[in-house]
């Protein structure tokens, strides 16, 4: 295992460990974090593994400095990540906005737990679904992925690193305690079969005055530190060259729109959903751990002759409204399943309701994945 980035093979592995191994396979060179249940195994594993491949794990004084340190390291060209749970994300939010504002590639793993506040640390509750998109102040877009298995903890972490590099944006892996602590088969492919992306950087020797390093809807090359670009990087309102402008509203308009459009313009490339609703009249929409119960319910339902299908959101952000609308036009009814009181439901409803009836089904007990029989009962009621 020593000195190897990619541990090719088949394992019975915990989701959080698979996440750490996915980070290494994707090229992570520096991680910083602060211990928190139920995400700590990721930090533990990275602390053991990163130094073996010449990388660095920093245990910081809090989550605020964890995200700050990885943003700083990202500006030196390193691939970086941090892993935490809800309370840690709450502390990171200001600097998450900073990372968005200065277009910094970084991966942020949130192994969600029972909330609000200190809540119930070991309970798997996807209660932070809107927070990465709306938690930091101002309008902005990020990318988020929702793994549903230890295998996807590996796969999605790799994808997260690649999307972060490609779009110079924080990419979230929105896991929860179920998926993080679940042990299942994880297959780690051979290194050469894992696609790896790298951020664009200005040509060495480019005149610093000519580098447009920011606010390009097709992603500007990143004027990394230490390469003679003399980059002026400020999260205050700035122009394409990084020059601060605190007085002209059109400059603010340009700053806000370009940052968001950079992601929205490329939604087709980013958004991923799993579709299985051919010929269905009623579709279960879900994500993450709950989608496992939805799949079982669909399987049981079909065995019983019910016209039921499934749509799983792999990327809840940017929000896949086109995919939802397309589905809603083909079916009669939609049931949204979430292990919370309906966090993505209003967004899903807004996209699907013009075309079909939309219902929400919370779990019987918050923190308990829906029983497939309970889901089937609701399907029969709605039909």
């Amino acid at each position, binding site marked *: 295992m*020593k*000195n190897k980035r990619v541990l090719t093979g088949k394992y019975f592995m915990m989701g959080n460990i698979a996440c750490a191994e996915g980070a290494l396979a994707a090229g992570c060179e520096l991680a910083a974090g602060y211990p928190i249940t139920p995400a700590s195994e990721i930090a533990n594993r990275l602390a053991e593994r990163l130094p073996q491949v*010449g990388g660095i794990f920093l245990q910081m004084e809090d989550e605020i400095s964890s995200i*700050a*340190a990885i943003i700083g390291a990202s500006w*030196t060209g390193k691939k970086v990540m941090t892993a935490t749970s809800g309370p840690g994300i709450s502390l990171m939010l*200001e600097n998450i906005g900073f990372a968005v504002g200065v277009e910094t590639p970084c991966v942020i793993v949130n192994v969600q737990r029972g909330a609000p506040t200190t809540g119930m640390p070991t309970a798997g509750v996807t209660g932070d679904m809107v927070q990465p998109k709306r938690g930091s102040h101002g309008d902005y877009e990020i990318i988020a992925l929702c793994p549903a298995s230890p295998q996807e903890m590996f796969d999605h972490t790799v994808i997260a690193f690649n999307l972060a590099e490609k779009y110079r944006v924080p990419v979230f892996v929105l896991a929860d305690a179920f998926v993080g602590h679940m042990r299942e088969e994880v297959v780690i492919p051979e290194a050469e079969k894992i696609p790896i992306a790298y951020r664009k950087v200005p040509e060495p020797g480019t005149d610093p005055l000519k580098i447009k390093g920011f606010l390009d809807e097709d992603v500007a090359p990143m004027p990394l530190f*230490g390469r003679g670009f003399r980059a002026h990087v400020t999260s205050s309102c700035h122009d394409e060259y990084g020059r601060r402008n605190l007085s002209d509203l059109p400059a603010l308009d340009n700053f806000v729109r370009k940052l968001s459009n950079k992601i929205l313009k490329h939604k087709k490339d980013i958004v991923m959903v799993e579709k299985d609703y051919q010929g269905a009249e009623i579709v279960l929409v879900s994500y993450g751990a709950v989608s496992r119960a939805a799949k079982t319910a669909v399987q049981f339902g079909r065995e019983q002759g019910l016209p039921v299908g499934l749509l799983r959101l792999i990327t809840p952000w940017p929000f896949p409204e086109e995919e939802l609308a397309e589905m809603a036009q083909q079916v009669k009814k939609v049931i949204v399943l979430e292990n919370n009181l309906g966090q993505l439901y209003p967004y899903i409803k807004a996209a699907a309701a013009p075309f079909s009836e939309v219902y929400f089904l919370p779990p019987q007990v918050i923190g308990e994945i829906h029983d497939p029989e309970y889901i089937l009962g609701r399907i029969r009621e709605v039909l």
Partner: protein
Amino acid sequence: MSELIHPLHRYIRPGITGTTNCPGCGNGIVAQAILRAIDELNMTLDDFVFVTGIGCSAWIPSPFFNVDVLHTTHGRPIAFALGIKMGLPGKKVMVTSGDGDLAAIGGNHLIHNARRNIEMVVICLNNSIYGMTGGQAAPTTPFGLKTATTPYGTYENPLDISQLVIAAGASLVARWTTYQVRQLTASIKKAINKKGFSFIEVITQCPVQFGRKTGSGSAVQMLKEYKEKSINIKDAAQLTPAELQNRIIVGELVDRELPEMLTEIKKIQARAQGEEK
């Protein structure tokens, strides 16, 4: 007649034509001391990455210095700087920020990076007030002083930031006022070459917010006061605490050799890779 150009002008970012500093601000003195130190060491700004927080003094390198600079969130520059130093161990990383940024909202990062003894230079411009937001009390504001948020006088004890950083474990700690420009420049030079966390506190005048609100007067009056109140740490050692009241102890407060974080990380990496036990 030939055009007169300031000898340090070549370090200023092209296109910058003015300053956001108020008349009499100490920022210019400190900015020059930093650039002189770099110049006298025969280094260039390409040897550096600057990191700043929020506040007037954070604007010294951003945008004025023609250098790689990260202008960060309030209180966090040292935490960002740690990540930058990890990624670019061969570059010099320097933080300039104020007492509010580094010692109030960012106090935790100051303590812990002094403890880590990560090689970087932190220059704290201590004007004892929140200048940018309009003269509110800082953790460094002298007891009893009237400010925008303490109209009846402060009721909190001020923080000695340098003593805090010494206690936390920094390698090099010095304190000067903007009156002792040459000594300040010499300390910055020493800090740049120090293998460890170097902290330089500069007591600096804010005539517009501190001076006007507290009745301390103009920039010139404040500098005169610094001259009169300053006492070198060596001379201070001869005086009693009572005699030192209301004095500014200046000089090199600490210069010591302690394990430096990056050096220790390299050892850990070698151990993890099985190169040493």
